[in-house]
């Protein structure tokens, strides 16, 4: 299986008509986009805005961030819009690199975060370096919270796909080609190198705490083998608003930093042989069932080592730890990625669960640490919502307009696939 990603670099967005790409500028037509969105009768009204890197702009509360991607043959985000579906991950996919569709608007209280396009918060997340086409949706009164979440999720993906189609006319792009074999081919590819499997945890706990795999709620799947290529094509999308710092948005799935890093070392330091998607659920029975099925698949792939990325914190830490423990007990050396909640001063016990076998942990930082953010000239969304979002409090807004916020209130502030701008380096 071969997937070619054709990346069209976007460094600016403007409103105009007709919609097109000129050089590195994306031009979109708000009237046309509104028409697309109002095809869904559950949407009462929609408006659009633009946020560019380096500007004094703040977006909150953010629900999802999606990179525009589209295919001439086949479809991106398979399983979401049509009854028939093809496996994602082959052929050619056009990507608008450097540009995202960002959905905003509260659904139920808390758990949506902040993106600042400049200032100290912008030093933390990759989102601040992207051009945002922001969509603000208003639902019909009769739409309940479940339906509301679905409407906003699908609207964001639909817009990302439509805007992605503008890349078809571009001839100026860079190409990344990824290949993936069957289990036997992968196993035998580099016989002298250790085989590594990636365990891909995804939140699966209920309203605003779900992910969708080919359109199916990940709560109702068991651990499943994936190809990295289908992830690049949007087979897995976010439906959740867990703590913004540790939330995996659809953008983070599409650009999964663990998969990219595994490819980078593949054939040199180790042999990347597979991915197992592991849903993070609530009951202990499901946790132990998923542990058994995940570890079994990792073993069936012939792994010598494993990498586990995390989503969320607290309850999912138990899944992370018990899977790590069982892999290690089976002789599979395991590295896990998690953030820490070590209190404002960094002095508290930082993990809500742990096992002695978790002896190789990559931390993405202490999410309880606080930041004072300067006032911004422009806020897309409602500034006062900071009092309700995760990481903010009723005391967040200072008399002079600055904001006091915990790092976990910043979207992607400590992304658990390691896709952040801060980190420790060995010197």
């Amino acid at each position: 299986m071969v997937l070619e990603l054709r990346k069209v670099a976007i460094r600016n967005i403007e409103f105009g008509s007709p919609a097109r790409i000129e050089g590195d500028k994306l031009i979109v037509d708000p009237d046309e986009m509104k028409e697309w969105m109002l095809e869904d009768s559950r949407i009462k009204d929609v408006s659009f805005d633009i946020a560019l890197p380096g500007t004094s702009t703040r977006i909150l509360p953010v629900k999802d961030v999606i990179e525009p991607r589209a295919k001439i043959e086949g479809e991106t985000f398979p399983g979401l819009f049509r009854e028939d579906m093809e496996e994602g991950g082959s052929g050619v996919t056009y990507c608008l690199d450097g540009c995202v569709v960002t959905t905003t608007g509260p659904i139920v209280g808390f758990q949506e975060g902040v993106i600042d396009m400049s200032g100290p918060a912008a030093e933390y997340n990759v989102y601040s370096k992207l051009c945002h086409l922001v969509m603000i949706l208003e639902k019909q009164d009769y739409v309940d919270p479940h339906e509301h979440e679905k409407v906003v999720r699908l609207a964001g993906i639909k817009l990302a796909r439509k805007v992605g189609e503008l890349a078809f006319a571009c001839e100026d792009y860079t190409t990344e080609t990824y290949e993936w074999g069957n289990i036997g081919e992968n196993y035998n590819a580099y016989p002298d190198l250790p085989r590594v499997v990636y365990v891909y945890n995804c939140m699966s706990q209920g309203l605003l705490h779900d992910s969708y795999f080919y359109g199916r709620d990940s709560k109702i799947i068991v651990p499943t083998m994936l190809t990295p290529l289908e992830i690049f094509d949007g087979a897995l999308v976010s439906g959740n608003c867990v703590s913004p710092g540790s939330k995996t948005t659809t953008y983070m799935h599409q650009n999964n930093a663990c998969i990219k890093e595994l490819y980078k070392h593949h054939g040199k330091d180790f042999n990347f042989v597979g991915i197992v998607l592991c849903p993070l659920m609530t009951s202990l029975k499901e946790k132990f069932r998923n542990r058994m099925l995940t570890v079994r698949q990792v073993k069936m792939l012939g792994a010598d080592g494993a990498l586990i990325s995390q989503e969320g914190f607290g309850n999912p830490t138990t899944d992370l730890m018990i899977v790590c423990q069982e892999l290690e007990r089976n002789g599979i050396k395991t590295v896990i990625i998690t953030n820490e909640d070590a209190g404002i001063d960094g002095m508290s016990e930082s993990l809500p669960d742990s096992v002695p076998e978790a002896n190789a942990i990559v931390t993405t930082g202490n999410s309880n640490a606080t930041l004072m953010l300067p006032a911004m000239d422009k806020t897309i969304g409602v500034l006062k919502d900071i009092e309700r979002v995760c990481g903010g409090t009723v005391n967040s807004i200072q008399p002079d307009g600055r904001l006091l916020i915990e790092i976990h209130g910043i979207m992607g502030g400590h992304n658990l696939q390691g896709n952040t701008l801060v980190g420790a380096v060995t010197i």
Partner: protein
Amino acid sequence: MKAVIISNNVDIEDLLPSAFSFLLLDGSAKDVLTAARDRIHLGAKLLAHPMAGRLRPNETPYMTVVLDDSRGELDLPSFEIIEYCLAEEEKYAPMRKKYDETLLPDLRFINCELFQSILEELK
């Protein structure tokens, strides 16, 4: 199995399946966890992780714990998890948020939603 739900969220009562008994506590999340801990010390088992979807303990005052209260030998996984949860509550006590009162119905709603996910998983 003798399923028991301990909660400080009054809205949970409307969602109870007939086989579950319900203990509504007029108290904090820590009170709910402590009541669950006491039962676990006597041999009860956790059926779901108490932190399900609650995320950080300073973000919401609501807590719902689902237990199998048939007493027996001490269940080690339940014991470890409940102690971790209590430690988390204590860690977050100094960072407790002052709640915006208008947010409380939403927080109860989310707590109910996640409780319903647990019921689905236990079916």
